[in-house]
């Protein structure tokens, strides 16, 4: 392990069995699976924001959950600060969870409606026994609320989530994570449910987590524009696999995988003088293939697809320092 790696993921897989009902029990057909995450490997460095971008159903949310073992992986290894997460027992996992936390998409659904802001944070403090004594707890909570911009803290202290705006709720979600001073945070679409005018405020907060507290972030989103704003590196996912990964500006200025190219061409630009780009690809994302495909998952939609590669899967190869692509076309 390199010293500055916070997270190392090796060949991570998560297959969900497709239930076939009673008849399936007696049939001789092999069990079928949805390959939500299908052999993903990557690393996250210290103080780095890595973005996972893909369309719905590409497996990015499942992957985020598996990273923290909120969902158990089918196979593969996850090392956080060198510790193999996949082999931890419950108690050790709880210990380790303090170091790796999650910010959820829905700030309305992820906060207990019957607890006030200070109680929500106090729960984190107590579960992980961060400090002793009520006074210490109070001052830690107060400090954290200030860190996430919920000041003056008196105003928010005894409020229930229902009395907060979407942006404020998501700040509580961030505070609950930040108070533990984790090394790694997985944020799954943290701003997609927020009003446009408050989104940037929450993104700035996520950037501050990296810059001021050295927290690494795995940012999961379908929104390429915000990913560009806060990520150091971007991984593009398609059908459970990483098809391209590299430094953000390289991915945006010089995308190599045809799918990445299509994604970037498809994003509307907030400038009326820019003409819409033509989409280089056709069709829709297939329903996550139950049948094992041994060809590039993008084959059907790819404008450069070559017959001779049917039956082969393109490996993720390094085309220039730190920039990896899984495509036969790219040499």
């Amino acid at each position, binding site marked *: 392990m390199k010293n500055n790696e916070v997270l190392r993921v090796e060949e991570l897989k998560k297959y969900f069995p497709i239930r076939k009902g009673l008849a399936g029990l007696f049939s001789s057909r092999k069990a079928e699976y949805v390959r939500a995450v299908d052999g993903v490997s990557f690393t996250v460095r210290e103080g780095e924001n890595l973005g996972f971008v893909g369309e719905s159903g590409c497996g990015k949310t499942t992957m985020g959950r598996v990273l923290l073992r909120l969902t158990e992986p089918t196979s593969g290894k996850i090392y956080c600060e060198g510790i193999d997460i996949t082999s931890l027992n419950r108690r050790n996992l709880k210990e380790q969870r303090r170091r790796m936390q999650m910010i959820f998409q829905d700030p309305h659904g992820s906060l207990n409606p019957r607890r006030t802001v200070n109680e929500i944070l106090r729960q984190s403090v107590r579960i992980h026994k961060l400090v002793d004594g009520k006074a210490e707890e109070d001052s830690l909570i107060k400090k954290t609320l200030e860190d996430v911009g919920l000041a003056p803290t008196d105003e928010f202290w005894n409020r229930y989530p229902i009395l907060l705006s*979407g942006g404020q709720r998501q700040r509580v979600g961030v505070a609950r994570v930040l108070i533990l001073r984790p090394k790694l945070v997985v944020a799954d679409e943290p701003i997609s449910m927020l009003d446009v005018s408050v989104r940037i405020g929450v993104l700035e907060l996520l950037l501050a987590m990296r810059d001021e507290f050295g927290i690494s972030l795995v940012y999961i989103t379908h929104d390429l524009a915000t990913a*560009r704003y806060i990520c150091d590196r971007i991984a593009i996912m398609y059908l459970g696999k990483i098809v391209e990964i590299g430094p953000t500006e390289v991915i945006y200025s010089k995308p190599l995988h045809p799918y990445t190219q299509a994604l970037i061409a498809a*994003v509307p630009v907030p400038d009326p003088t820019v003409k819409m780009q033509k*989409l280089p690809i056709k069709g829709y994302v297939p329903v996550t293939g139950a049948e094992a495909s041994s060809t590039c998952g993008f084959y059907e939609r790819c404008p450069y697809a070559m017959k001779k590669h049917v039956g082969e899967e393109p490996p993720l190869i390094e085309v220039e320092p730190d920039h990896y692509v899984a495509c036969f076309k790219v040499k």
Partner: protein
Amino acid sequence: MALLDVENLKIYYFTQEGPVKAVDDVSFSVNEDETLGLIGESGCGKTTAVFAILRFVTPPGRIVGGKIVFEGRDIITLSDEEMRLLRGKGIAMVFQGAQSALNPVMTVGKQISEVILEHESITKEEAWEKAKKQLELVGIGSARAKNYPHEFSGGMKQRVMVAIATACNPGLLIMDEPVTGLDVIVQRQLLTLTNDLRAKMHLPIIFITHDLSVIAETCDRVAVMYAGKIVEQGNTVSLYKDPMHPYSKALIRSYPSVKGEKRELKSIPGAPPRLINPPSGCRFHPRCEYAMDICRTEEPPLENRNNGRLVACHLIK
């Protein structure tokens, strides 16, 4: 004269806590062969405003003032029967969330022909043929007319919605957040379809969204709404290049783009107000970096500044 003229429209929701002024003195117009974008955050009243155009506002909401003149007739004074004839034929709408807007137990072909039969005196067979043509038009293909909504993906369902809305050649099409919740590639396909249809049918459109970049790619003119009011209105290109109202400025400055230089984004402090008790004076003043004393007490009128730009701000003289 404009095709649609909305004048001083006021829609309040009468709740137990008091009236919520969802749309408060809003005026805008749509001309023939023009796409007007209505942009604003959730709860700013944009959907309520267009619901009024189709008289979909239901209690506790009520249109308490103003006029909506479409092709010379004030919609607010029409009888229910006249209104029924107008919906779908005169003005059609693509609703937000095609997922729940389609009837799950009726084939899509049937749902399209249902609208046609309602407005045109033709046989069922002719209507079915027309429905199939509509499916061709939106790029689904007539072979799928007998499919049910659950057999389509989200983007395809939204196309079906467009097929239904355009089935009777409406005089005006309203699209409420048509691409929200769709993946970028599907979103792009739908935007291309919208632009194609518009070019083919010369269809005036009101396009509602919270997404600045979607407006930039589809609309000729844009109206920016904030807390139940229009704060700025003008030609899309000039408004994006030179926004005058501090809210439009801040909104554009806070919007990330995937193309071009990566520029510094700036957030807008605070959150949109609750409309039950909106701020006094200019409703944006608590979040405005240029707020002056007059902004707290006096509401700025929406005034013509130069070449057709309307702005409601005390700062601009």
